[in-house]
């Protein structure tokens, strides 16, 4: 039990306090999983579908922002978080060489997702893409090996938060 040797009050106080959590808990209760496990490089890469889906979602965001500049302020912060997911997935999968080459801006114009001409419809299309990506992340998290469950859970939770922002 993590609270062995500590009063519960002390440990819980530390949890709320946020400071010195590692010292108080002592055994990584407040860490974010066994990151050391994430450095192995399994083959085939079980994160490849999530990586591909995340890049596709980034393509929807970049195409929408390009076609509907009035949505940029709303979409750019969420886009940045999707790009952070790519970085986290790549790190979890074992380094830069394991993911498909990224480059949201490298999506060739003309082959990217089509964007509705009406801004409201364009935003709705982003919402639909985010919803689908969220559902996929939930499914992947539930089926994931332990080493990937926390990362995929965070991505699923992030996408749920995006849905609320997108309305």
């Amino acid at each position, binding site marked *: 039990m993590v*609270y062995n040797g500590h009063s519960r009050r002390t440990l819980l106080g530390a949890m*709320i306090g946020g400071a010195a959590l590692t010292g108080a808990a002592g055994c990584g209760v407040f860490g974010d999983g*066994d990151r050391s496990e994430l450095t192995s490089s399994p083959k085939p890469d079980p994160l490849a579908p999530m990586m591909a889906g995340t890049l596709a979602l980034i393509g929807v965001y970049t195409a929408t922002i390009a076609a509907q500049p009035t949505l940029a302020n709303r979409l750019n*912060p969420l886009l940045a978080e999707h790009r952070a997911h790519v970085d986290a997935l790549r790190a979890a999968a074992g380094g830069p060489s394991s993911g498909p080459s990224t480059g949201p801006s490298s999506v060739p114009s003309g082959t990217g997702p089509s964007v509705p001409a009406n801004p409201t419809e364009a935003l709705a299309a982003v919402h639909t893409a985010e919803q689908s990506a969220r559902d996929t992340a939930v499914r992947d998290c539930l089926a994931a090996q332990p*080493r990937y469950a*926390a990362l995929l859970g965070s991505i699923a939770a*992030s996408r749920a938060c995006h849905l609320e922002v997108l309305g």
Partner: protein
Amino acid sequence: MTGLPDALTGEHAAIYGYGVLGAHLRGPALDAARQAQAAHRSRRDTLFVDLAAADEPAPEAAPAYDLPFSVTNQDTAVALATQIEERTGAVWRTTLPDVTGSQRRLALDALTDCALRAARWRRMAGKAPGTVALP
């Protein structure tokens, strides 16, 4: 079953924290705090049932918990609410690798709800969109 006792410990603290900060909120913020506390109670109750079913000891709540800072007004109350959701969500995230099946679903739902509430509290503090990349 590793992980679920930690999650229960976190939910106890969250419930306590909302009890303290709610006194400094009004209107929609108070409503949000009440709903959040009810949600944490619901998760606590689910954990009690799951741990009992597995014949595992369930950590009890402490009578009181040390707070990271004084809650004296709406701003500090919202700041504490944000921190509660971040920390409780982090505990649930840590639980994810330790569980499977319906318990992983429970942990993922709890992590997601904590992330949603944290983002709402950040927006209430004026930080839009209030989301983070990896809650």
